Every structure is written in C-alpha cells, then in structure tokens.
C-alpha cells in the first residue's frame, strides 16, 4: 500500500530531524540553555525566536537542548527494556520447565506493583540522574516485555527447525542466538519503537512532576516551570506551547513509525508460519 509507505517515510523523517537536533544541539542553540540571555519573560523577537522565560533563559535554546534529554530517556530506556525483555523471554520460553516457572512467578510478583508509582517513589528516594532514570524505566518496562517475547519463543522452541538443529548437535546458546533471536527480532523492533515513545512521555511526565534531573534541560521541566510560574495565567504562550508541541509531534511520529513498521514486517511474520 503506497499510503502506508508514505507514512513510514514521513514519520521516519520526522524522527530523524529530532535526532539531528539532539545531536547538533550545541551548534543549533544560539544561547547556553541555563544562561541569562536577555530580559525575563520577553516575547519572541529576532534574537530570541521563542522569547525567554522567567529566569531570562532563551526558550528556543532550552527546547533544542531538551530534545537531547527526551530522546536519551526514550531510546536508552527502550534499549534497556527490549534487551531485558528479549533476553528474559528467550531464556524463559526456550528452556521452559523450572526456569520458566521461576521467571514467570517472579514476574507475577513484580506485575502486582504498578510501575509508574513505583518509578515515582524510586526517583523521589534516589534522585537519579537522567541516565539512571532511563535505566530504571527500562528495567521496569522490560519485565513486561519478557511475557510478550516468551509467548513467541514458546512456539519457536518446538518448531522443527529448532529441534532439527538440536539434532545436528548444536548447543542451547547457539540455537538461541542463531535461530530463536532472529525470528523474534521483528517483534523486538516494534516493541523498541513503541517503548521509546512510551518512555519519552513518561520521562516528560516525571519532569513535569518535578522529578527531573536538575542538571539537564528537559521538556517536562520546561512545561512544569511554565505552569508553576504563571505561564498560563499570564498568557505567555511562547513559554508553554513550544515544548508541548515538540512532545506531541515526536510522540505522533514514533507511533506512526511503529504502525508502519509493524505493517512492513507483517507479511514476513505470516510467511514464517510459526
């Protein structure tokens, strides 16, 4: 379907632009995001294209630098999450029996604890930096991923080509790496994209609730500052709207990309018949 293909490339393009902005933030941002760069609460003008905030920091520069934090939270969190989910899922589904039983019961216990409140509590206590936050989110998300990957692996583990490779004399590690993993990779890819989207929004939520890393700029903290220091009441749209729109576009682009990617790999999944 050409329509799907178009949405695939457009959303991929948007994600690329965000990544480029994050990567070249020092070159793109005209000011230091923490520096006092003019008068406070100034509306947009030629020097400050999105105006300044109550501390006289340049909002455009903060927005650009904030991209970095948001993408790190999303992609690092997602990478840790799918790595854990894939490893746990493959081990659990492939070995089955007691190994599977132990992993599943551990997950049952973990699942009873709602993950966002847990994340809040952990961040309140430990005040982790941005990287630690990503690791925490990834870990909690990865626990859920284990089940999804495991259900696929359960059917792969008894597929003839896996049994046949065992009959050739291959070891378990080899079979998991060469036969099971490649066959769950499409699913892992989809999971990575949707996790990234999810973790970005969660990261922004944490920032908004005041749990952000004070050493970095992120969109959540920008929105929090704008709402708490009178951005809405005073009608200072340039303070609040830009980070809001930035989140919305990125999140939409990732969701689109995820769906389009899922469609692309689907025929292959059907072809596999496992």
């Amino acid at each position, binding site marked *: 379907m050409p329509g799907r293909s178009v949405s695939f490339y457009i959303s991929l393009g948007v994600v690329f632009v965000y990544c480029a902005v994050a990567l070249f933030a020092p070159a793109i941002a005209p000011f230091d995001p923490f520096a006092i760069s003019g008068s406070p609460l100034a509306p947009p003008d030629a020097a400050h294209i999105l105006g300044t905030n109550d501390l006289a920091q340049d909002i455009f520069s903060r927005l650009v630098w904030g991209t970095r934090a948001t993408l790190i939270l999303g992609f690092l969190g997602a990478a840790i999450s799918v790595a854990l989910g894939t490893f746990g899922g493959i081990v659990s589904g492939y070995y089955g029996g007691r190994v599977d039983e132990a992993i599943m019961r551990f997950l049952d216990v973990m699942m009873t604890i709602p993950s966002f409140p847990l994340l809040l509590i952990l961040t309140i206590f430990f005040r982790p930096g941005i990287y630690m936050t990503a690791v925490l989110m990834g870990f909690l998300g990865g626990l859920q991923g284990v089940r999804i990957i495991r259900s696929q692996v359960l059917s792969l583990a008894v597929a*003839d080509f896996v*049994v*046949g490779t065992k*009959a*050739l004399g291959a070891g378990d590690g*080899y079979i998991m790496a*060469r036969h099971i993993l*490649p066959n769950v990779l499409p699913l892992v890819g989809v999971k990575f994209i949707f996790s990234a989207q999810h973790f970005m929004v969660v990261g922004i939520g944490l920032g908004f609730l005041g749990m952000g890393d004070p050493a970095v700029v992120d969109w959540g903290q920008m929105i929090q500052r704008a709402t708490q220091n009178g951005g809405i009441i005073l009608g200072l749209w340039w303070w609040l709207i830009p980070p809001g729109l930035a989140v919305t576009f990125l999140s939409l682009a990732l969701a689109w990309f995820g769906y389009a990617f899922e469609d692309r790999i689907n025929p292959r999944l059907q072809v596999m018949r496992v």
Partner: protein
Amino acid sequence: MMHGACTMIDICDLKTYYSAGFLHRTEVRAVDGVSFGIEKGETLGLVGESGCGKTTLGRSVIRLIEPTGGRVVFDGTDVTALSRKDLRRFRRRMQMIFQDAYTSLNPRMRVSESIAEPLRIHRIEDRAGIDRRVRDLIEAVGLNEEHLNRRPYELSGGQNQRVVLARVLALEPEFIVADEPTAGLDVSVQAQILTLFRDIWREYHTTCLYISHDLGVVRAMSDRVAVMLKGRIVEIGQVADVLDHPCHPYTRLLVAAPVDDKEFSCPVSAGAPAMVEVRPGHWVEATAR
C-alpha cells in the same frame, strides 16, 4: 533378539511415557517397551496409525525426546547413557528428517547458511572448505548454485526437502530417522524425493528408520518393516513377509488382508504378550487367548 552380526542400532525395551491431562495425572505410554535392531545399511520401515507412537519412538531413539526407560545401543555405544556434552558430539552420526521440510528450515536463513550450519557447529571445515562442500551437497541433492541464495519460502515443498537432505548429509551420518518426509508432497514430487533418498542411502550405506503411514512408500523404501500399535511393535520382519503374509490382526487390517485367511493366523499366548517367530526373521506379538 532378531538381528544378525553387524547390528548398527540395537533398541532394548525402550519406553517413553508422558504425563498429560488435568494436573498431569494421566500417564500416556507413547512408547511402551519396544525392542528391535537395525543392521548396518538396512532401512527399517515403521508403520502404524496416527497416534500409535511412531514419531515419539523415532525421536526417542536419537534422544531428541528423553526416553523413560530402556537402552539404545548405537554401534556399540549406549546412547541413552551419554552425557549431554558427549551426546552433542555424537549427534553428527545420527540425524533426523522431519515431515514438513518447510518448518524444518529456519525461515530467516538462506539455503547456503542452512546447509553450512552443521559443518560450522562441528567445526568440520574452514571457510573455503565449507563453501566447496555446500556446492557439492546442493548438487548431490539435485539442486544448483542459484538455489543457494534463496530462502525456504521461495522454494517448493520438494525443493525444501532436498535442502533438508543436503543439510543432514553434510555430517555424513551413519543413521537417519526419516519421519514421513514425503507426507505433504504430491505423488510425482514424492517419487523424485524418494528415489533421491534411496540412491543416496545406498551410496553412503546409511542405516535408516523410515516412519510412514503409507504402505506403498514403506514397501518401496524398506528392507524390513515393523508394525506399531499403541506404543508396541506387534509384527516385524522382511517387507514381503509382513505385508504379503501378515499374521497380527492389526497388520491384516492395515493391509486389508482377507479376514478368514487360515494359513497365517496369529499365534496365541497364554500369559503376557510375547514375540513369536512364525518364520525365520518374521516375529509377531502373540495375542492373549
């Protein structure tokens, strides 16, 4: 009990039980005390209805399923006593071909990778050696180099079964368990695959356990045939003896022999079922009186 001097496989009282049903309370005796031998270079056909345990037996013999009891002696080595590590090294001597060639190949691997894999696992050749062997093997099974870059879904059922054979032959196994390898194929393709199997097995003196529910195929492929019923072997012997002069009631049903044929009636046993030799090398399980 019923084999000559150069026995390749000796199976003695092999048992494979499963637990099934609610809370695993029910015990299913898929293979229930099976004994037979296969001589070197011989093909033994194994027939029986679906669910009689023939697939489980085939897999238990090469320990793809762990048997519950009994012994399998392969060329003097007790396979059932091997450690996991030794078993893995031993596996290159005994191989399996499955019913569905398509699902026996990793959908994400090219044909060349699939055929090279066994050589890599056992570190048999260097890279150039593997390439050369893969080319030799693909031609040996009647395909050519252009098939090497394809993936399973780009090939037909018959072509995939050829790839499976090439992959299995890479290790030059002495024993192959073939579990209905042509069940899903058309008659004309089946004839191509079966003649290929037969030629190659003859050339390599491969010993084979050939599982099928198709009597015509078993007759064409085997030297001897064993009939399986509910986890037990009820009749075994030369193909012509068993299929043309069946003794056990189930074999007679299978080959649609006339019911009132008095000449070869099944021996009767007073006690527990036992195997009786009704003719040289033709054994039948005596039915209870």
